[in-house]
């Protein structure tokens, strides 16, 4: 049994007395791609920063790649951290940025590492372009190049695909999976459901608290939701009718269909049957999506806050 790549427990981080990360415990096995999800301001970036030594936790302890969280200098050498905001030098070219990073990781010879990384990520043609003049997708690719160049054992990626087109996103994920097969561990935060589904396991954080973690199936099970899909010309009427009815937690439009989600399966079934009766729409049970689950978690989180 190998040691987990990330094993932290009870992490607490406060800013000016406001608890932003609230007793977060997380385990990520080696070679695993772990998704990190949660609404804006829920504490994803802060948790990742604590893990890579950029912030000190107020409480809690843990190990990253077998090193105690306090041994920052050891952790830094073996991880690659891609920040949410582009944080390489805009007034340096792609190649100069990579050479700088290679120098700081003590890679030798710098130029051959830079050349290989450029080729690896398809950046060679743009090597002399200033980073500041790159489009979002290329910036993200450069940032990824900079954090994988030194062959880290763990990648911490903070919303790496925000604002990137679908094709580039798919390529990015193919790249991540390829590396994970070779033993790299990845913790990646995202707001995209399709990306969450590409992770081996996901962790969902809300208001600083980790509310669910496990495989997609585990998380769906934890949410304990039942979903019905309604179809037909009168779905808008059905939506109005269903809102606030017993067993109905969420009513969402998807094009011409209506997703009705609830925790109490029996009550939901009765309410849906009533609506079908009244408006003449077609209703049938469907699989709950992650998005439904997350929206449910978010609503729960708000309840907790009040």
């Amino acid at each position, binding site marked *: 049994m190998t040691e987990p790549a990330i094993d932290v427990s009870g992490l607490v981080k406060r800013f000016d007395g406001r608890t932003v990360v609230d007793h977060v415990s997380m385990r990520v096995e080696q070679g695993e791609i772990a998704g990190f999800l949660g609404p804006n301001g829920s504490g994803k970036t802060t948790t990742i920063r604590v893990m890579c030594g950029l912030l000190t936790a107020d409480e809690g302890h843990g190990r990253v790649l077998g090193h105690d969280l306090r041994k*920052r200098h050891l952790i830094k050498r073996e991880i690659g951290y891609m920040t949410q905001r582009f*944080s390489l030098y805009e007034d340096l070219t792609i190649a100069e940025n990579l050479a*700088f990073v290679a120098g700081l990781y003590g890679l030798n010879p710098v130029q051959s590492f830079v050349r290989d990384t450029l080729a690896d990520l398809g950046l060679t043609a743009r090597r002399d372009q200033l980073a500041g003049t790159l489009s979002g997708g290329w910036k993200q690719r450069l940032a990824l190049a900079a954090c994988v160049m030194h062959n880290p054992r763990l990648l911490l990626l903070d919303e790496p695909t925000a604002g990137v087109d679908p094709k580039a996103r798919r390529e990015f994920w193919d790249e991540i999976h390829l590396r994970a097969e070779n033993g790299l561990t990845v913790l990646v935060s995202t707001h995209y459901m399709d990306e969450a589904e590409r992770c081996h396991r996901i962790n969902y954080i809300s208001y600083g608290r980790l509310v669910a973690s496990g495989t997609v199936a585990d998380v769906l099970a934890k949410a304990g939701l039942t979903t019905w899909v309604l179809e037909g010309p009168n779905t808008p009427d059905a939506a109005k009718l269903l809102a606030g009815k017993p067993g109905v937690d969420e009513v969402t439009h998807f094009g011409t269909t209506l997703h009705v989600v609830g925790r109490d399966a029996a009550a939901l079934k009765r309410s849906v049957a009533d609506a079908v009766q009244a408006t003449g729409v077609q209703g049938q049970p469907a699989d709950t999506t992650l998005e439904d689950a997350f929206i449910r978690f978010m609503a729960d989180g708000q309840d907790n806050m009040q």
Partner: protein
Amino acid sequence: MSRYFSIRRLTALWKKEFIQMRRDRVTFAMMLGVPLMQLILFGFAINNDPKNLPAALVAPTQDHYTRAIVSALELTGYYRFDHVAVSATEAEALIERGTVAFVVTIPSDFGLRVDRGDRPTLLIEADATDPAVASGAISTLGTVASDALLHEMGIASQAAETARSHLNVIVHRRYNPEGITQYNIVPGLLGVILQMTMVMMTSMALTRETERGTMENLLAMPVTAAEIMLGKVLPYLGVGAVQVIVVLGAAKLLFNVPFVGDLGLLLLGVLVFVLSLVLLGYSISTVSRSQMQAMQLTFFFFLPSIMLSGFMFPFRGMPVWAQWIGELMPLTHFLRMIRAVMLKGAGPANIHPQMTALIVFVIIFALIALARFRRTLD
């Protein structure tokens, strides 16, 4: 790779810093253009030996001796007698208001004393609030006046040397007895210019990274506080070296500032001074949260250092408490050192205290910077 220090990491930091400097045209221009511009501007303003300065004449008896002296003084080009035959009180008011720069007083018994063979007295009061301006006029004065007088008395100028003691010229440099000269100021200007550019630029070293968001990436990589400090500070030492060459070269070429001391010793002193400045700037950047704050702190430091270092006003003329504050500024020690070496030819033994003080500043600023450096984003 050592945990604490690696020359490879330092080299990477330097390269990056130099590339950024090169790309930032405005800053680059400022680093070389501003020193030169300031030197030329101030240097000429100070070096120009201003002539045709307004003067008042207090002469109760207008005899031919008086006229001879007045016309001789006017011939030098320095004096322009706008106010002739005024009373002593009027003259006092004129100089106080700054309407005239000089008051020449020829006593009523002047002619009488000359004829008797006594030593006549001539009083010249100079408004020395701007001493560099008045100094040229004053320095020619004694000779001109007595030559004129001797000529008037019919003594040939060969004999003038011996007879000079005949005239007793009393000069009162008023308001600023120390009388700073241009040579005093041009070397000082080097110190002020270096301080201005070096502190200003390094004070933004870290805040710029923070504001651009690059600090997060930098701190996530295995680089130490000392490496970041040296990586930031030493490239500016190089810039400082270029500035020194530009300013010293211009001082020599344009202003012909005398250079009696050992150049090697001078450069060594300048090096330590610049090192203390870049570390001071860097310390400022470790405590400021934004470039605006860094700028404010820098200016907060500038004015006192220019006023209290002995650049603008004579150091020993200040009250003791102000002198103590002055001692806390690297510029004060540098000014003493550079004036001693450049103008008086002082050797290592003579500038030892200044050198020690500057080295102490280097150590203190480096320690402050290391202690205040934030290794995390907290």
